[in-house]
């Protein structure tokens, strides 16, 4: 996939003499010395990253980290001091006001933190605003705005005033306004920051659902790491105007680039970041036809496992635990017990993409969890210990102490 957005050395300096400060910054002086010497504040310092077509790219940072400035440079609301922004090869940082207006009308829409809906217009007129600015005829404008409202589930409120809607609904209008012009890039500046936690969860899911069909390129700003991890295909973490790490949610949680990121990810719900895939191992398997309880015991002893899966051809038939296989083997004396007799057919299974948080229930059965692909073929198994080891933040450790595990597992479950 081609990079939709290419951002290179993007820098913004606020103050009386940005050019001088930029020179000093490029020479390697720190933000603090530049501020003391020139009175200029470095808002964003040499941010560089690419965003692929159809990706959600999350920029995460605390207030004052420069993330809002960064996103406003991407559509020229704030003029960059240095660096370049290429959208489809067109440099936004160095184009005329007319070109900038065309880009804003055709390509890049924005959704705002405090919704920024126009209070004197009805919901549908708000949604149609971008189209009106583009000069779309009234009938078509209305039709497309109505379609955008349908997408966010607000078509019934088309004639209401924004002030009559709840916060969550208002932001859906904001989203509809952004989507109505069918932009290629959607900039979202902390869109859910002003919403209550429960409603936020709702609209986050809504956004993910929409994104599945729309496949927009989205730059999403947030100060909430959990939100970043939930939504972001890739995440950039900003601190003091600098991008300190870029990567997938799992990269950032498993390999924080520095102490700052590490401190951030320390408190996050790892169960929502990692998927079954990340903790799955190669399965040890037996065949339903031919293998016996004795074979099962031997396999498990050799591979140091508590249970093995039994396949009937390609399909999973069930799972055999060490206790049952060993007991059957002992009781029967020398004669081999067919494996079907000791097999448990009610086995836990999950998709590779299942979040660990959804594996807690399965893991508590003590059986390894079968990871299956779309054709219900066994592609791996997840040992219950591995789930908890990943949650405790130390996947290298084979067996985590039981007490914190129980806490870890109980908290998010209770929070839900």
């Amino acid at each position, binding site marked *: 996939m081609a990079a939709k957005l290419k951002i290179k050395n993007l820098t913004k300096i606020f103050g009386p003499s940005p050019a001088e400060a930029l020179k000093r910054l490029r020479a390697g002086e720190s933000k603090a010395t530049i501020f003391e010497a020139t009175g200029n504040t470095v808002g964003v310092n040499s941010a560089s990253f690419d965003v692929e077509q159809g990706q959600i790219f999350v920029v995460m940072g605390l207030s004052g980290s420069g993330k809002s400035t960064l996103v406003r440079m991407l*559509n020229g*609301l704030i003029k960059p001091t240095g660096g370049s922004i290429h959208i489809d090869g067109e440099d936004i940082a160095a184009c005329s006001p007319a070109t900038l*207006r*065309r*880009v*804003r*009308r055709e390509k890049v*829409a*924005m959704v*705002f933190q*405090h919704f*920024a809906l*126009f*209070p*004197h217009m*009805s919901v549908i007129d708000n949604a149609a*605003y*971008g189209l*009106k*600015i*583009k000069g779309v005829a009234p009938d078509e404008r209305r039709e497309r705005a109505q379609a955008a409202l349908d997408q966010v589930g607000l078509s019934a409120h088309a004639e209401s*005033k924004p002030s009559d809607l709840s916060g969550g609904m208002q932001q859906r209008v904001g989203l509809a*306004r952004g989507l109505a*012009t069918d932009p290629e890039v959607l*900039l979202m500046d902390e869109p859910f920051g002003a919403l209550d936690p429960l409603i936020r969860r709702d609209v986050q899911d809504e956004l993910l659902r929409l994104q599945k069909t729309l496949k927009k390129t989205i730059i999403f700003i947030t100060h909430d790491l959990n939100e970043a991890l939930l939504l972001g295909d890739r995440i950039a973490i900003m601190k003091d105007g600098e991008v300190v790490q870029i990567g997938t949610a799992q990269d950032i949680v498993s390999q924080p680039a520095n102490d700052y990121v590490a401190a951030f990810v320390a408190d996050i719900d790892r169960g929502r970041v990692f998927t079954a895939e990340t903790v799955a191992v190669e399965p040890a398997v037996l065949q339903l036809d031919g293998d016996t309880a004795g074979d099962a015991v031997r396999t498990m002893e050799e591979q140091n496992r508590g249970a093995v899966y039994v396949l009937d051809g390609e399909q999973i038939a069930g799972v055999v635990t060490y206790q049952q296989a060993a007991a059957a083997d002992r009781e029967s004396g020398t004669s081999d017990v067919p494996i079907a007799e000791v097999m448990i057919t009610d086995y836990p299974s999950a998709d590779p993409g299942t979040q660990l948080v959804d594996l807690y229930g399965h893991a508590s059965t003590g059986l390894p969890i079968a990871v299956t692909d779309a054709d219900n073929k066994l592609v791996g198994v997840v040992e219950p210990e591995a789930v908890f080891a990943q949650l405790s933040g130390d996947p290298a450790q084979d067996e985590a102490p039981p007490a914190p595990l129980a806490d870890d597992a109980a908290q998010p479950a209770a929070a839900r």
Partner: protein
Amino acid sequence: MRPSDFLVIPFDEWINIFVRGWLVPNFRPFFRAVQVPITQVLNGLDAVLAFVPMLAITAIFAALAFKYVGRGMAIFTIVGFFFIDMIGLWPETMTTLSMIITAVLFCCVIGIPLGIVAARSDLVWKFARPMLDVMQTIPSFVYLVPIVMLFGVGMAPGIIATIIFALPPIVRLTNLGIRNVRADLVEAAEAFGSTPLQMLFDLQLPLAMRTIMAGLNQTLMLALSMVVIAALIGGGGLGLVVNTGLGRLDVGGATAGGVGIVILAIVLDRITQGLGEQSKVKTVSLRQTLISMFRPGANAPAETGKVAP
């Protein structure tokens, strides 16, 4: 010892030389031309108001008062206008009304665009602000003299003096209203690629309308307060009645003129205030306006959450 022992500034002489020696001889034709549109509008209005029967005008004002303010104001309008007619001042009141409407009209034509420009540019506002301060604080008698020299005597010069005096509020409040439009809304409009003109008409003017209407109300009131002074340089109407009463020590005549001005002021003030309140509401179609004019209950209280008093 004082500064004047060393230096005496002939300030009054300078002004005399500037106005009499330079401004009047060089620009008199220009200023004469300026007053042509004012005279035209005034004469047109005056002719209309003189032509329309007294009862019809009263009915129109009562209907407006009823729509924008309420039943009480409508009754006051009818009683007040009847009283003016019965004390024999109806023609003078109509002359004053046409003068005021003309002055306010030109204040809007000049003041609203000026306010818009001032809101867009800090530099313009930096220059406009002290000028507006001067216009509002300088005693109007001071500029009556140059106005007479440049424009002569008559209704139009009286209106020009009124415009100078009444212009500042509408400029100030247009500027204020536009500057007070929430920054995030302006940013949003910009993010969707609005041109400055689209931003002005789609967003800034509608949202500033309430403030601009307050400015209009203030301008109207200031214009009314200039009626008597404008009469000194040839403006007719109720101001002339008051001035004549003053000259003849005719306390009755002066009071009658004054009462006429007060009644007119109250009616115009309440109606324009009501207009300002109204503009918060979404624009209503002509049909809805007509319906709500004849049905008090339909005066959109459900939409505004406000009930007309």
